[in-house]
């Protein structure tokens, strides 16, 4: 009996300590629909470059992390209202987003964006270009004044090109390459756009402590080359 009480007290105490600590469990939000960055694998779990990277960062920062998926459209609003603590969803660091949330240092190089189309002689400037809503690619096309067709998910942008609804889709090269490799109908245009400031982890602006922890963890992975190994493994793009 005494033992039981002791164990209960210990449990209660440790629960109290866990509560007192700012982040006992860090919840990582991702989209789960953007391979190789993040996707849901056959087992129904979050997988991909960011899954592996995130898990490694958490173990280096000595944090317990948990993955949750969220729609891309509402991924920032749900972060600031506290549903999860960080975003790892292939989100490029932009000045516009930086006004609302904070970013860690980038964990990928500014990723070149490519066009995927049905034939190699499509001119994006005169045709209809598809892009996912709220992405750097969508604002890039809008700024150029080209005809933009926006979709909620990356999958739909590809489907639009297949159906002929759009002439080309603009997205990260790392996302489009495996699709172009497997589908004989689709080819990458011989034209790249360099947009965005690399991909970073998004955090609440008030969460400076967590940001410092992750910044340090990313730096340590950059220093020992393990980040580069992951980038090569998942064919994300250029290494650091």
């Amino acid at each position, binding site marked *: 009996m005494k033992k039981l009480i002791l164990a209960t007290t210990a449990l209660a105490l440790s629960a109290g300590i*866990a*509560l*007192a600590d*700012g*982040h*006992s*469990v860090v*919840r990582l939000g991702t989209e*789960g*629909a953007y*391979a*190789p960055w993040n*996707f*849901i*694998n*056959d*087992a*129904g*779990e979050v*997988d*991909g470059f960011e899954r592996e990277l995130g898990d490694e960062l958490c173990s280096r920062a000595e944090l*317990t992390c*948990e993955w*949750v*998926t*969220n*729609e891309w459209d*509402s991924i920032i*609003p*749900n972060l*600031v*209202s*506290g*549903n999860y*603590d960080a975003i790892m969803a292939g989100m490029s660091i932009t000045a516009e987003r930086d006004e*609302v*949330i904070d970013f860690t240092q980038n964990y990928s190089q500014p990723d070149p964006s490519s066009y995927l189309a049905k034939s190699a002689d499509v001119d994006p400037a005169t045709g209809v270009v598809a892009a996912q809503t709220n992405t750097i690619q969508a604002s890039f096309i809008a700024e150029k004044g080209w005809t933009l067709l926006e979709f909620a*998910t990356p*999958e739909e942008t*590809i*489907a639009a090109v*297949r159906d002929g609804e759009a002439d080309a889709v603009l997205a990260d090269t790392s996302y489009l390459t*495996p*699709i172009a*490799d*497997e589908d004989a109908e689709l080819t990458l245009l011989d034209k790249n756009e360099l947009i965005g400031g690399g991909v970073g982890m998004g955090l*609440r*602006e*008030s969460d400076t402590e967590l940001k410092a922890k992750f910044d340090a963890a990313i730096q340590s992975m950059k220093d020992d080359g393990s980040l580069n190994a992951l980038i090569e493994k998942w064919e994300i793009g250029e290494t650091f």
Partner: protein
Amino acid sequence: MFSYCADPSTLEGLKWMSCYLTTAKHMSLYWSFLTVLTLLAITAPAALLFGFGGASAARSRIAPLRWFGKAYIAIVRGVPDIAFFLFFVIALDQAFEWVRHQVKCPDWDEPIRQGNDFIVCQAAKLPLGNAPQWIHEVYGFSLAVLTFAIVFGAFAANVLYGAMRAVPRGQIETAEAYGMTSRQTFWRILVPQMWVYALPGLSNLWMVLIKATPLLFLLGVEDIVYWARELGGTKTARFTDYPHGDWRLWYFLALLVFYLAFTKVSEVFLDRLMRRLSHGQATMGAGS
């Protein structure tokens, strides 16, 4: 799941399909059907309760209660569902956390709203930050049920309000003549008789509620629409053992069949209920 599923790339036809349809990811899809059915099973009675409360309030003799009932019906019915769903879930969540924050952390000195951030102390978080994922999911689901109940409750309130007025006046007068109090009249005469008038409207609402369940997806609950879209999307061989093209059409077709079958079953059931309730019912013409 089956022993021959170890290397799907060597399989073909039915065998491949049997492996494909039993991946852990597909199991999540099948479970999500249960999520939808659970939602309906909890929401329908909850909405009816809200509706009954709203209708009773709207015909109350106490003015503030009557205003409250009428305002509830008018406001919720007048705002687009989707706007309400997006508003309510965030507002309810923040309201709960704010109340808990006031109770649990009275000596907190930082502002709750810092720019875009909504910050309450860790102990006030709902669910707690260190709670396992399933608690977060149950919490999200409960918020969804509550929102559905509030929205559909307003429509149900209007239906019941109308049904209460449709009960022949003579029935009430007779009850009063027998010396029943107004409370007795309400519970013993009015309520048992109003259902037959309410049923057509309520059955309509039930159909709309079934069709509205995909809104769950909007609320962040991984329902059948989420999984159908996720599973149906193009899968390249690098990231899965079961590569396939854009199969969303087939998945959504399956959802369509599910919803049609479900509403058909409901229709048959409601027809029977209607017939049973009308049995021996006093109607407008019956008294003469």
